[in-house]
């Protein structure tokens, strides 16, 4: 399977920012500082289970349901 990570990261950014571009940029920066660069994942990226878990944990800490 592929593309799950990109979708999860996009959901986090959309949910955290509510569509505000400043907040979307800030959330992207926070994710990159956590070692998850949304720009490095595409719809074709493998669903690496370790990365999927990491993204899921981050979402939970941010109070976001994926």
């Amino acid at each position, binding site marked *: 399977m592929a593309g799950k990570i990109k979708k999860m990261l996009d959901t986090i950014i959309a949910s955290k920012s509510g569509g505000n571009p400043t*907040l979307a940029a*800030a959330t992207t*920066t926070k994710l990159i500082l*956590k070692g998850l660069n949304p720009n490095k994942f595409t719809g074709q990226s493998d669903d690496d289970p370790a990365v999927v878990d990491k993204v899921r944990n*981050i979402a939970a800490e941010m109070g976001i349901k994926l």
Partner: protein
Amino acid sequence: MKIKVSYTTEKQTDAAVSALKSDFSGMETKAVLFFASSAFPPDELASAMEKAFPGVSVFGCTTAGEICSGFMSENSIVAMAMTGGIIEDLRVEVLEDVKGNAKGALNKAIDAFHAHFKIPLSEMDFNKYVGLILIDGLSGTEEILMDAVGNVTNINIIGGSAGDDLKFAKTFVFAHGKAYSNAAILALVKAAGPFSILKTQSFRILDKTLVATKVNEKYREVIEFNGKSAVEAYAEAVGVPAEKASDAFMRYPIGLVIDGDPYVRSPQRIEGNSIVFYCNILEGMELSLLESTDIVADTQKAVADMKNGMGSVSGIINFHCILRTLELKSKNQVGPYAAIFKDIPTVGFSTYGEELFGHINQTSTMLLFA
């Protein structure tokens, strides 16, 4: 007057605090933020500052040098008094035992903010609220605190790591009349008017990439870049022999580049074939080699651009990396740098690290009030 700054070079705590009190007399002060040399006895200073300003939120930390409008100093105290024209509401929380339980301490503070402001941090408007964070600069907890607080809120949390005049022995944060080590202060401000955040660093991004392929996160240590020993790979990127690598640290740090903006990671020392940094680098992170440019010119432009955008600036709080201060000193540029702020009420200090979204180095993070 919405903001006033003061400084003192009095050596005795009581005399120093009296001088600040006298300068702020007659103001309807809501908060006093102060940055003090580690030369002052911390408990005595915290207590004296609290007593000098009854009914006012008083908080601050120790430094590796102080900054005030138009000058930089050492062995002094600088302070900013803010009135209701700047701060509509404020709550100052102490996060204790951050080395043992940073997240627990933060959660307690978050609950206290919620109770005080009657709104959860997660729902606060980032245009109205801002957080100021001061962290024990030797606790090594900046990343965990900034990461955790960034998860629960969209408001900007800006600040610095307390210093101790380069002794690297013990740093303190101050609030509620006490001095704390192994602690952080988080002050949440509901601003009375507009404010802006500025992050500025003076580096050119070079076309050399270092991917951290093996790290020891806990010790901020990179063991390997690009599959080679960290020292060898770094030296190769800079173009110097490995034994000269540490000579290049100040001029050539590395940065996590986000939208063309580097989040600087400064090498601190070599240990064997590893490099220990002043902040964390995660395994797999792709970093760019940076080359220093002109701090004075870059800061002047950044502050001027911000001033133009805001219309007017009534005060600046400047969290300024000690490595920038050392570079300014080595280039005889302390005076010109300080002069950038001579017409704006400014306080700040030379930090052991700067905070904005995360923990960064060789940067200035500033809070500007309109």
